[in-house]
C-alpha cells in the first residue's frame, strides 16, 4: 500500500474536519487552513516528477470489495501526474483567490468542504486504475459540482443550472458505467492496465463497440462536448472560483483524461478516431460560434471553454489516427498530437482559470459582468 | 363428480367476479366472499374426490379421503373469515366517514 | 324381518313423513298471502318436520347401531325450543317494520297499540 492512496483520502478527511474546525477557528478565515491541503498535495506530487519522467510508474492497491474485484488501485503515470499537479496547483490558487472573493456572509465551511470533496474526487478519477473506483470518483465530482453550482441555492438560476449539470453528467456516467461493465464482461477485469493489455483479443467481440461508445458518452457529457455542452453555460451560476476551478480547469478535463486513458484501449479503430475527432471539431466550432454572441462575460468564457475542450478532444482524436493507420504509438503523429493536447490542456487550465478570476474581480468591482452596459 | 364441482367453481367465480366489478362496496365484499368459496371448492376437487370415509381416528374404514385439502381449506376458511370480517368493519367505517358505499362516489371525496 | 329392522323401518318412515311435511310447509311459504300466515307454516309444520326426521334418525341409529346420540337429543331440544321463538320474533319484526296484513285479514288488535308510521307506500310492501 502506497502513500499515494492517502493523497486521495486527505481532502476527504479535511472536508470532514471542516465543520469541527470552523467552530474552533471562529473569525479567522478558514480558507487559510484549507489552503494547506492542496499545497501539501502539490508538493507530494511534485516530488514524484523525477521518477515519473524517468519512465517509472507507481501502482498500489487498497482492498475494498476483493470478492468482486473492486479495489482502490492507484496508478500514477505521466498523464495522471500532469492532471494531479494541475488539480492540486489550480486548487491552491483558487482557494487563495476565494479567500478574498467570498463574502463572510456566505456559508464558508460548506464551500470549502465541497471544494475539498471535489478535489479528492478529481484526484481519485485521475489516479484510479480500477474502472469502478474511477466511476465512484467520477460521480463524486458530478455531485460536488452540483453542490458548488447551487452554492447560492436561493437563486433560481443556480438551482436550475445545478440540476441540469447533475442530470446530464450522471446520465453520461450511467452510460459510462454500462460501458465499463461491458468491458468487464469481455475481459473479466476492472483494471485499466490489464484491459489495455488484453483488449486486442476482444476487438471482434459484440460488446466492443457498444462499450466504446458508452465510455465516450461519459467522456463527452463530462467534457461538455457537443451536443452535451448545454450544461456548462448554465453552470456559470456558480461562484467564480468554482467556475474557474471546476468548469474550466479541472472537472471538464476529466472527460478528456478518460479519452486519453482509453486511447490505448479503443484507439486502434476507425470509429474511435472519427467520433472523437469529429465531435471535438464540431464542439470547437459550435463553441466559438456561440461565444461570439455572448455579452455576459462568464457565459462568453464558458463557450470559449467549450470550444477549447473541443480542440483538445479533437487533438486526441487525431493522435489516435496514428494508431488506427498503423503508425504505432511510437510514431511522430501520435506523439505530437498527444503532446499538443496535453500541453494545451495545462495551458488552457491556467489561462482560462486566470480569465475567470479576472472576470470575478471585474464583477466584484463593477457590479456587473455584462459587457457593453 | 369432479366435473360437476369444477363447473360449480366456474359459476361461482363468474358470480364473484360480476359482484366484485360492481360499484356498491357491499357487493364487492360479497363477491370476495363468494370467490373464497369457489377457491375452497377448487382445492377440494383438485385434491381428488376419492371414495372413503372422513379421515378421523374414530371412524374405521378401509380407505380414508385425503386429509390435506381439508386442512388447507380449514385454514383458508379461517383466513377468509378474518379478512371478510375486517373488510366488513372497514366498509362500515368508510360508510360512516364518507357517507356512501358507492365506489365511484368515494373517489370523488376530497382528501382530508 | 326382525324387531330391529322394523324399528329401523319405523325410523325411516318418520324421516319420510318429515320430509313430506317439509315440502308441504315449503309450499305453504309460497302460497300463503302474507308474512304472518307464512310464519305459521314455517314455525309449525316445518318444526314438526324437522323433529320427525331427527327423531327418525335417532331411532334409526338406536336400532341399527345401539347408538344413543346425545347430540341428536340436544339438537331436537334446541330446535323444539327455538323454532317458536323465531316465529314470534319474525312476526313481531314484520309488524313493527310496517309489513301489511293480507287483504283477507279481518281483525287487527295491534292497530292502535303500536304506532306505525302512516306512509302507505312503504318499501317493505305487501305480498
Amino acid at each position: 500500500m502506497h502513500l499515494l492512496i492517502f493523497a486521495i483520502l486527505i481532502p476527504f478527511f479535511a472536508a470532514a474536519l471542516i465543520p469541527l474546525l470552523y467552530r474552533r477557528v471562529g473569525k479567522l478565515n478558514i480558507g487559510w487552513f484549507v489552503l494547506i491541503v492542496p499545497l501539501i498535495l502539490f508538493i507530494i506530487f511534485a516530488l514524484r516528477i523525477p521518477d515519473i519522467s524517468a519512465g517509472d510508474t507507481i501502482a498500489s492497491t487498497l482492498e475494498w470489495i476483493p470478492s468482486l474485484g473492486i479495489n482502490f488501485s492507484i496508478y500514477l503515470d505521466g498523464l495522471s501526474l500532469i492532471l494531479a499537479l494541475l488539480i492540486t496547483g489550480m486548487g491552491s490558487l483558487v482557494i487563495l483567490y476565494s479567500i478574498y472573493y467570498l463574502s463572510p456572509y456566505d456559508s464558508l465551511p460548506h464551500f470549502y468542504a465541497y471544494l475539498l470533496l471535489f478535489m479528492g474526487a478529481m484526484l481519485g478519477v485521475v489516479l484510479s486504475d480500477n474502472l469502478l473506483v474511477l466511476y465512484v470518483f467520477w460521480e463524486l465530482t458530478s455531485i460536488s459540482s452540483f453542490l458548488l453550482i447551487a452554492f447560492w441555492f436561493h437563486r433560481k438560476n443556480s438551482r436550475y443550472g445545478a440540476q441540469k449539470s447533475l442530470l446530464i453528467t450522471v446520465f453520461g456516467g450511467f452510460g459510462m458505467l454500462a460501458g465499463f461493465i461491458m468491458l468487464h464482461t469481455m475481459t473479466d477485469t476492472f483494471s485499466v492496465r490489464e484491459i489495455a493489455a488484453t483488449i486486442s483479443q476482444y476487438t471482434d467481440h459484440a460488446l466492443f463497440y457498444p462499450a466504446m461508445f458508452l465510455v465516450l458518452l461519459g467522456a463527452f457529457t463530462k467534457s461538455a462536448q457537443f451536443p452535451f455542452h448545454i450544461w456548462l453555460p448554465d453552470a456559470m451560476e456558480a461562484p467564480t472560483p468554482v467556475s474557474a476551478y471546476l468548469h474550466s480547469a479541472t472537472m471538464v478535463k476529466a472527460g478528456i483524461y478518460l479519452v486519453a486513458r482509453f486511447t490505448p484501449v479503443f484507439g486502434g479503430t476507425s470509429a474511435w478516431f472519427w467520433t472523437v475527432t469529429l465531435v471535438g471539431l464540431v464542439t470547437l466550432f459550435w463553441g466559438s460560434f456561440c461565444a461570439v454572441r455572448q455579452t455576459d462575460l462568464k457565459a462568453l468564457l464558458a463557450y470559449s471553454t467549450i470550444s477549447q475542450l473541443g480542440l483538445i478532444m479533437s487533438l486526441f482524436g487525431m493522435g489516435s489516427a496514428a494508431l488506427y493507420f498503423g503508425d504505432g504509438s511510437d510514431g511522430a503523429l501520435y506523439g505530437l498530437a498527444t503532446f499538443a493536447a496535453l500541453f494545451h490542456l495545462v495551458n488552457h487550465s491556467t489561462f482560462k482559470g486566470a480569465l475567470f478570476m479576472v472576470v470575478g474581480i471585474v464583477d466584484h468591482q463593477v457590479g456587473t459582468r455584462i459587457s457593453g452596459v | 363428480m369432479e366435473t360437476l364441482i369444477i363447473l360449480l367453481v366456474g359459476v361461482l367465480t363468474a358470480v364473484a367476479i360480476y359482484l366484485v366489478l360492481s360499484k356498491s362496496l357491499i357487493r364487492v365484499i360479497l363477491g370476495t366472499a363468494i370467490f373464497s368459496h369457489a377457491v375452497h371448492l377448487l382445492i377440494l376437487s383438485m385434491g381428488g374426490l376419492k371414495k372413503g370415509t372422513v379421515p378421523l381416528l374414530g371412524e374405521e374404514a378401509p380407505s380414508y379421503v385425503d386429509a390435506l385439502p381439508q386442512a388447507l381449506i380449514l385454514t383458508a376458511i379461517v383466513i377468509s373469515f378474518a379478512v371478510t370480517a375486517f373488510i366488513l368493519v372497514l366498509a362500515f367505517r368508510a360508510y360512516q366517514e364518507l357517507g356512501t358505499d358507492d365506489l365511484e362516489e368515494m373517489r370523488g371525496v376530497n382528501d382530508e | 324381518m326382525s324387531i330391529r329392522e322394523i324399528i329401523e323401518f319405523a325410523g325411516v318412515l318418520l324421516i319420510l313423513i318429515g320430509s313430506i311435511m317439509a315440502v308441504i310447509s315449503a309450499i305453504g311459504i309460497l302460497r300463503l298471502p302474507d308474512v304472518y300466515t307464512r310464519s305459521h307454516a314455517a314455525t309449525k309444520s316445518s318444526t314438526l318436520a324437522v323433529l320427525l326426521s331427527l327423531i327418525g334418525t335417532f331411532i334409526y341409529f338406536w336400532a341399527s347401531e345401539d347408538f344413543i346420540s346425545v347430540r341428536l337429543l340436544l339438537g331436537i331440544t334446541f330446535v323444539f325450543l327455538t323454532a317458536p321463538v323465531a316465529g314470534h320474533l319474525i312476526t313481531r319484526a314484520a309488524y313493527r317494520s310496517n309489513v301489511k296484513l293480507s287483504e283477507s285479514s279481518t281483525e287487527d288488535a295491534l292497530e292502535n297499540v303500536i304506532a306505525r308510521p302512516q306512509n302507505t307506500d312503504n318499501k317493505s310492501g305487501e305480498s
Partner: protein
Amino acid sequence: MPAQFLINIMIAFLWTLLMDEDAFHISTFIGGYLTGIGILFLMHRFFGTKFYMIRVYSTIKLLLIFISELAQSSLLIMKQILSPKLNISPGIFTYEHSMEGDYELTTLALLLTLTPGSVVMEVSPDGKTFYIHAMDVEESRDSVLKSIKVFEKAIMEVTRG
C-alpha cells in the same frame, strides 16, 4: 322440592357405594335411583311437601300436550295449505293470561305459538297481555281460548305444584 331430588340422588349414590363394585356402573346408579324413588314415596309426608314425582309426571304431561298440539296444528296448517282454495281470514286478537314469572309466561307463549293457527306476536310491556296472530280468527279464537285454560293449568301444575 329440589331437596327431594337431591335426597334421591344421594340415596342413589349411597346405593352405588354400598354395592361396592370395582367401577362406577350407571346401571347400579339407576337402580339406586329407583330405590330412592320408592323410599321417598314412602317418606315424603315427613318432608311436608308433595311427592316430587308428581311434578315429573305433570311435566311429562305438559310435554305430551306440547307435542300433540304441535301435531294438530301442523296438520291443520297443512290442510289449509293443501286445500285448493285458501279459505282463511287471518287476524290479530288479544289474550290476557294469568301466568306469573318469566318462565311460566314463556312456556305459555311457546305453547300458544305451537297451537293450531296462532302465533304470539307481541307481549305487552307489563307482560300481561298476548297479542296473537291467528290463521283463522273466528275459528281459532274459540279453540285457543278453550285450550289455553288447559295449558295454563298444566303449566301451573308444573311450576307451582
